[in-house]
């Protein structure tokens, strides 16, 4: 599925962000040991480059193991064996966003066409299924969304103004 792009859009320069994100926990009783899974950085996408500069955990952890999860998100497994009342995680990020040309929304294919293709399209097939441990899709939300998709309308309708 290629996205139609209107001609002569101005090219915008990339923007670079330095971020610091701090998470703190306080406990009323001493925690003797703990294991946690943290998602602290954005994933790589077209137009998004992300670099984790530093992850600092206090108290110092016994194990830190980094990996990408199934969806490509940076994931940290952390195990702490020191008794503690407070826990903090500080992550420093370097993120560069390269603006991509905005698609011509009105020119996207009819939404029915996309919906019919989705179950066989590997990149999206996973996301049209209900999440195993979330509530079933709500008919009320479906009805609300249906208002934005008139029959034969574009699959990326322009926001109402």
């Amino acid at each position, binding site marked *: 599925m290629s996205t139609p792009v209107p001609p002569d859009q101005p090219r915008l320069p990339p923007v670079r962000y330095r971020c610091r994100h701090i998470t703190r926990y306080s406990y009323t009783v001493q925690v*003797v*040991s703990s*294991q*946690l*899974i943290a998602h602290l950085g954005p994933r790589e996408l077209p137009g998004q480059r992300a670099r984790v500069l530093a992850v600092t955990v206090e108290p110092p952890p*016994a*194990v830190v*193991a980094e*990996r990408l*999860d*199934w*969806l490509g998100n940076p994931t940290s*497994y952390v*195990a702490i*064996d020191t008794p503690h009342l407070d826990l903090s995680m500080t992550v420093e990020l370097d993120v560069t966003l390269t603006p991509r040309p905005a698609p011509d929304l009105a020119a996207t294919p009819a939404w029915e066409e996309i919906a019919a293709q989705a*179950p*066989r399209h*590997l990149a999206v*097939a*996973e996301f049209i*299924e*209900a999440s*195993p*441990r979330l509530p079933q899709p709500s008919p009320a939300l479906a009805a609300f969304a249906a208002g934005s998709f008139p029959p034969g309308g574009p699959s990326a309708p322009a926001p109402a103004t």
Partner: protein
Amino acid sequence: MAEPVPQLPPEQPSLFSDAGDLGYGTGPIFDEMVTGTGHLRPHWQQFFAAHGPFTPEQMAAKWAAARQRLFLNGVTFNSYRDPQGTERPWPLDPVPLLLSAPEWRAIGAGLVQRATLIEKVLEDFYGPQTLLADGTIPPGLLYADPGYLRACQGLKVPGGRRLVLFAADLVRDGDGQWRVLTCRTEAPTGVGYALENRAVLSQTLADPFRACNVERLSPFFEALRAAVARAAPQCSGVDGHPRAVLLTPGPFNEAYFEHAYLARHLRMTLAEGADMVVRDQAVYLKTLAGLERVDVILHRVDDAFCDPLELRVDSALGVPGLLQAVRAGSVAVVNALGSGMAESMALLAHMPALSRRLLGEELLLADVPTFWGGDEGQRAALLAQLDRMVMRPAFSSLPGHVANGPDLGEDAREALAARIRARPQDWAGQLPVAPSTAPLWRDGRVEPRPLVVRAFLCASGDGGWTVMPGGLVRISADARHAAVSLQEGAGSKDLWVVGAEPLGTVRRLISAPPDGAREPSPVPGNLPSRAADHLFWVGRYAERAASAVRLLRGATLRLSDDSRPAAREELSPLLRLMGRATLIPQEIAQLPDSDAARGMRQALEIAVDPANPGSLVATTGRLRRAMGSVRDRLPLDSRQVLGRLDVLGASLAKADRAALAVLLGDFSQVLAAQTGLELDSMPRGAGWRFLVLGRRLERAIDAVERLQASGIAHERPDAATQEVLLELAEAGPAYRERFPVGVQREAALSLLLTDPEHPHSLLFQLETIRRQVSRLPSLPAFGAAGGADPLVRLGDLVAQASYRVQDLALTRDMGLLSATLFQLGWALPDVSNLLSQAYFSHVHARAA
């Protein structure tokens, strides 16, 4: 060896094998024993030659023998539907199912192909997913399945085998063709029950078993043990073997009997999730001696419940961090986590296509025709034949029940169709198969009943599979359906593969015998803390029950035997002691002497009333639960004790007074048997020490309380009180040997308190406790949190108690006795608490 038996041609009616002679109905459905014209099938003839006809008397005797053996072996399964949550006896039919060796080999080849295929499918799903990319499988089949665990994507599979144990349910259709009903890939249940069924039937039907040359099951279990061991990424045992653990959800799981049985048989440590901990990305078992590395885990907890950190957060059954340990390659979990998704009906509907794609072969063993709603073409077929289909959830981890199309009314069918259209991917349907039947012994005759065979395979060393020459046959109570489960209360049968060539010339599918270095081993000598805790309480409850039985026997004897001297007078002290033991309420325990007989009659009812939490019946229930939780660590014959206790507890609750006296005698014998088993059959390891500590501590606490309640320290006891005290401490004969007549407080007290040779004296208990405490494993890494070592405090407390009781003045100086009893009254329960804190609960806080 079997005697040669003349083979009778199937057309010719034999002397005793005609279906009509057996009173066995035949119909249009395929029967395993007789042909459509009512003749015995050839491979059953040898069985009947050795067994003889199914006469009601003979069958009733066999049935009773089998039931008795199962009962004594404690074979049970828990029913989730039973509101009491009680264990039910395992239903085994006395007639085995016979299949000929050539037929079983053909089935086995189909199963091997099936297991190979499913392993390849899983390898692809949790790896490159080419089956999705090339369109063999619609993506929804994977992504809509809650059993597809994304956290397990790309997870290492140490040993290279995802499936170590594989099972399939098979039915035979009307044409005599075997078909696959479902596959079991997550944590297949039933191997243990199959083994136990075999153990029972090979004994109750010893003659036909020998005559039929039945293939043995034991090589399969050797192969399974080796397969589990091969999965281990390293061998951490001091003996050079991998440490293997069977992870069970615990005693309330429906198949806990099997978990305990299998763990013992495969020589693995039985453990619950809370018995293990992850440190440094490795799994450790918490034992009394500290943390012991685990190499391989055979899990009977469902995939999604195995790690609350990465899978279901609400699971209390798993080990937090287990997935990370698997990811780090430090432990193997078999079957590989996430394999449960291969049980899905949706996948079954795609098996022929998968076989062609991945193996380039047609399936050797057909499926029961299955349709998945998530596939457009199959959905149409499914909706069109809804009135014939058996509808099931498409994915094994979806909740929901089986809906049988033909049973539904018009409205119900419409409602189901609407539900299927709303979420078609959640539904699958199977065309009904009229399963073959086999004789079931019921109400004095044999009747044909539909059956399902669960067959088992384990991974072999050469990358292939070993097929169990046998299986678990389940019989449906309902003549129409093949859908049977343990939960639905169906019967089971042993499966005999008969007529193989004699052993030695048979070519077997079995891997080479496991080489010594890869035998799995339980964590050696080291007890999980939870098991130590249960053993301690087995000891305490067993002594508590024994003490209550002695009290109640004393009471029934005196109520029923008026000729006994002083029977009446001795009722009052007995009542007081029963009150102290919380068998009865205080208002009855304190009744005046004149009312003692009436009070005692009432007391005997209350003391066995299950509603009374202090009653003997309630204590028995606690003892049974504690024993059940560690049955894998008690002597084998304790299973029989457990079974007898079950019956005794139930009978006590409804016994009249005459019956009560008899039952109490039986009870006393059963408890004595357990004591004997412990002494004679248990190695003197940590587990035995905790059991003994429980027993001696309970007896010591009981003795102190009894002396306090008797008032012996305050006034010279009357003859009745002294007689009762001596009797309860089993000291009557020893006393009379020394003092034929009269009340001798000092002599009585020395027997009860300070005699080091009398096994019921207080000093005897304290000295045993002191000895056992000194031999307990030390507490490693203790002291990180500061404070005194609890083991030192424990030793001090026990030594002081023992020292006080050795004071000979105790039997003369009543002030000293009173003070000592008071001291011990709090010190002994404190010993119990300290033990529990040091070994059972605080273990969690210990650093690695």
